[in-house]
């Protein structure tokens, strides 16, 4: 049950791009800040909305 809960939370974080942000910080060796989030978010959303949503 605990494992399922952890997996569910991880899925929600993935869908919310929070995991991708964590990976971004780790990859670039940077700390979280408002400016860093905005930089990440702009890049991420630009790529995300260059693809259509499924019907």
């Amino acid at each position: 049950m605990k494992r399922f809960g952890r997996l569910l939370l991880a899925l929600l974080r993935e869908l919310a791009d929070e995991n991708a942000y964590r990976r971004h910080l780790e990859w670039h060796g940077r700390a979280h800040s408002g400016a860093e989030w905005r930089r990440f978010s702009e890049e991420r959303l630009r790529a995300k909305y260059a693809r259509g949503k499924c019907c």
Partner: protein
Amino acid sequence: MKLLRVLFWAAVAAVAAGCLGGVALYRGEHINSMWLVLAAAASYATGYRFYAKFIAARVMTLNDQRATPAERLRNGHDFEPTNKWIVFGHHFAAIAGPGPLVGPVLAAQFGYLPGTLWIIIGAVLGGAVQDFVILFASMRRDGKSLGQMAREEIGRVGGFVALVTVLLIMTILLAVVGLVVVNALKGSPWGAFTIAATMPIALLMGLYLRYWRPGRVLEISAIGFVLVMAGIFAGERIAQSATAAPWFTLSAMALAVGIILYGFLASALPVWLLLAPRDYLSTFVKLGVVLMLGVGILFVRPELQLPAFTRFVDGTGPIFAGKVFPFCFITIACGAISGFHSLISSGTTPKMIARESHARPVGYGSMLLESFVAIMAMIAACVLQPGVYFAVNSPGGVVGATPAVAVATISSWGFPVSTAEMAALARDVGETTLFSRTGGAPSLALGMAHIFASSGGGRALVGFWYHFAIMFEALFILTIIDAGTRVGRFMLQDLLGHAWAPLGRTSWMPGVWLTSALIVGAWGYFLVQGVRDPLGGINSLWPLFGIANQLLAAIALCVATTILLKMHGAKFMWIPCAPLVWLVTVTFTAGWQKILSPVPAIGFLAQADRLAAGAQTAATATLVFNARLDAVVCAVLMALVAVILADSLRVWVGILSGAAEARVREAPFELSRLQVEEL
């Protein structure tokens, strides 16, 4: 142990066969929805265990020793090895849209049986195979897109045709889903207020994420969800207020104009402000509602009120005209097989797969779950009394504009319904009328409200659940509209940038406004056309969308067939080729009939001729033009796919005769070094 396993799977297969047979052959008064649930679940399990495993082991030879692009090209952004269940959820959230919900509701006019069989069999043998093979092919080719693979495997023509088809499909798709929202919200102050309230909520979420609590997406999504729920409760008060209700009681045309303006703004405004926060919220609500609906159906186990077959299999249906073959198979696209999925299977997903064997649960398994959503939508539609179902879904132009005429027409078909019954139902859900609320969304919301209210809360909460379901459908349809408009704008800017460089720059606002206006104008035209159509628009636009979507699936299956042919010769090409032959037969028959059928309710040209022969007004001239335009769009789609089919056949014949080289363009083998703890 092995014997136990054999016995278990023999039992599952027997349940699948027994339930499918039971559903198909039972002709009693009513059938319980559990028959459909069991038939679907056991068929999916059998297909996944045997067919998908066979494809994975013998055809694809999936190898966990082989490093995937997520590992080889890992960059902390797109390419990232991810836990298979997280990729599964991510992929499912990306492929699940309104299609599997609306299509089955519309196809229920033939009865529950044709649509149910198509959803189950189509998904196991067609849709899931397409998604799985395309995901595999993209995974072995560094995450390449369908267009890139079509260009490399078939030729330049294939790549270009895939691009144009996607643009056309998106135009029709955005118009048709916009029309679904319009028909759900027209004359409904409660619904219109709830959806209007999501706009400032999304703006608040955008600002919160950008400036106040950057990065806290889950936190603000939870706050946004609470605010949306508060909006549904407030909507009831608004609908009851003599002062406020008229402000939110909107005509179909006013709503269409509102949606067009919204599409333009969402495309031109910064993505973080409106589109992204709405998308986050919509994704979570969508997954939650799908789960709730599944639990609700299992808890209530409702009986289906619609028969297995209705008289409308003969093509005289009021919701859309045309016989069960081919129209059932294009009306239900996404729940059985959807070309659009191939874009997702060759998009983000292949870049996240950590082990090759994960492609089976993600590619094949996600499609089975989507198919199950379609089964739930079919159940939600079929729990309604048939008379109510047809009164809600039939346009006034077919059954009669007044309630008295409409109930008389519908009752004469053998589906009794009364004005008092419809008035009581409308009162229960807080609407003034439920007649001719075409598009599928209102009847799905009614069915869902019935199931949710029966699970808890009773009749007193039917109104809340109805508007909750409408909010859920409209929320993610609007997300598709704004994201689709934006994507179309990017494609157009890319294209026009070759003619004049500034038009291609996404930072040059006049170019952004112009291309946004062009894209919005294209789908907006079809949306307004649907609103003006006396038959409700769904009759012409949904089949057009279904044909377009299935034609994209035909392109994906051409790519899949070519790849398997290059890998194994003719030995396994039947796997994607069998659904391809079926789809080509269905879509070309449907396309042919939509253009050339002499029955005006079916054929666009016959409809135009009949209108042209009547009294001539400006409105008639527009309808004539629209019918001819629909015929041209349909013909263009068919011609595009005929081109790619011919191109594919040329490649296949070349390979089979030995005249052409069967070069497999996979990335070279590299040994995986991923550790278990990284997954």
